[in-house]
């Protein structure tokens, strides 16, 4: 069976809610049924076949071609299967994803993987603000799974992160790891201001020395036994993180945010 492929054939004026096009909702539907599904765009509704050319039949393997940054909610609550996005993805990519795999060849917008529960998200380009964060007003962000960003990430990466792993090969913006409850964020590039602002627990793993707030206290240099295990878990990834030469187990440890309960940590490669 070939992948169920949606090729964007027209540029929508308004943003499009792509949440109906996830594997579990398309399973067992005919092409005609899928074509007749409605997608919200602004105050209008479009049939799927008004926006996309549909090919293939394997609903567990969805491909979105010619994707643009106006396509929001791709892979929302995905519960198994894979979605491959050729091009850019809009806001709320992989929101509340339960399990499965989403790969984006371009960039992704705001709130990618917000409140993600499990699964794997890979973005080859850059992502917007609030990667893996909680939705506004909510207290719990990403709860599990792995996010890999090969480019840069915007501000507030992992805001209210509860569990899971965020890997960023590039740079992260301001307030990275803000209000984290737990989990791990690894950034190979640089980080912005207010790193770990109000974080409670969790780990920020950095390759480059950050600009730390006064509410992070230096705990000295240490060799940590869990780091080799963490790095070895990256081996299967299509990423710089899988390269054994980037791994380390010797770090400078900073505890914080002391303005909160102070059980989080920033680990900086030495």
């Amino acid at each position, binding site marked *: 069976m070939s992948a169920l492929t949606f090729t964007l054939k027209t540029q929508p004026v308004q943003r499009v809610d792509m949440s109906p096009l996830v594997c579990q909702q398309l399973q067992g539907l005919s092409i005609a049924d899928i074509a007749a599904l409605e997608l919200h765009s602004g105050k209008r509704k479009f049939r799927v076949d008004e926006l996309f050319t549909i090919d293939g039949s394997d609903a567990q393997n969805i491909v979105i071609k010619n994707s643009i940054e106006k396509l929001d909610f791709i892979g929302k609550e995905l519960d198994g299967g894979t979605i491959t996005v050729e091009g850019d993805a809009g806001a709320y990519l992989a929101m509340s994803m339960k399990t499965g795999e989403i790969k984006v060849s371009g960039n992704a917008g705001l709130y990618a993987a917000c409140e993600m529960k499990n699964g794997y998200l890979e973005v080859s380009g850059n992502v917007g603000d609030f990667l893996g964060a909680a939705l506004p007003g909510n207290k719990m962000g990403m709860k599990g799974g792995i996010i890999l960003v090969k480019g840069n990430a915007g501000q507030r990466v992992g805001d209210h992160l509860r569990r899971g792993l965020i890997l960023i090969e590039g740079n992260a913006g301001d307030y990275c790891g803000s209000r984290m409850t737990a989990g*791990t964020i690894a950034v190979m590039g640089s980080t912005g201001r207010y790193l770990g602002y109000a974080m409670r*627990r969790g780990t920020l793993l950095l390759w480059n020395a950050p600009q730390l707030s006064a509410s992070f206290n230096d705990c000295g240099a240490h060799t940590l*036994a*869990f780091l*080799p*295990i963490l790095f*070895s*878990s990256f081996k299967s990834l299509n990423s710089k993180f899988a390269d054994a030469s980037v791994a380390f187990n010797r770090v400078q440890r900073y505890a914080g945010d002391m303005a909160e309960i102070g059980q989080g940590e920033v680990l900086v490669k030495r």
Partner: protein
Amino acid sequence: MKATRAIITAQNEKWAMIAAQTMTGFATSVIACGCEAGIERVLSPDETPDGRAGVSVMIFAMGGKGLAKQLETRAGQCVLTSPTSALFAGIDGGIRIPLGKNLRYFGDGFQIAKKISGKRYWRIPVMDGEFLAEATTGQVDAVGGGNFLVLAKSQPQALAACEAAIEAMRKMPNVIMPFPGGVVRSGSKVGSKYKTLNASTNDAFCPTLKGATKTDLSPNIESVMEIVIDGLSKEDIDNAMRVGIQAVCDLGAENGIERISAGNYGGKLGPFHFHLQEIMA
């Protein structure tokens, strides 16, 4: 019986072995120790989760609750305390029982959980750095008490034969020989003339009692030693017994080996019977 396996790593093999020996100490028999434990084998760095030298240990107990209790107290008192050590699960399947899950409270609130590739680890701050322990390990059904007896013309010859057997058996997977050096010199029988004891010396195999009791020994046998084997399955014990008995037999009569026997307890002790002739066939 129920069994579990744990992997202890440390800065080097010396300290991994120290932790393993301490953890498996006073664990020769479930009769009085609460469990039977032993070192399965030394692990090379590429076989351990954290890439350091390691030792695999196995613990056997009569029930799951007792096993979990023994594992927890031994891990807490013997591995957590041992310099540079870390502790990992040695069985991925089975019923999950706590390994570092409760030891984490030693961290007094400073402990940190990390879930990596579906496994939860606890990082517990200690005075030499951090003690890393996997949260749980697997408990599986197992078989205990496989045994055979080496009957020899002299005590040194009996011991030499048992040493050869143990050396061969330690290369086999999924088994431990829980007694000192793997060898028992005080095999027991079920029951005693004293009401408070449920086991006592196996007088039929005591050479000094040849004329005083109903003996199983011929006149030329001066010493008997036993090797007890616990394993994850009957087949594992069969295999270990086979190589052990073969090693003894290779020494042969010229080295004082007179006979191989086994404590069969009238065939009433436990559901598994190891028939030596079938094992060696």
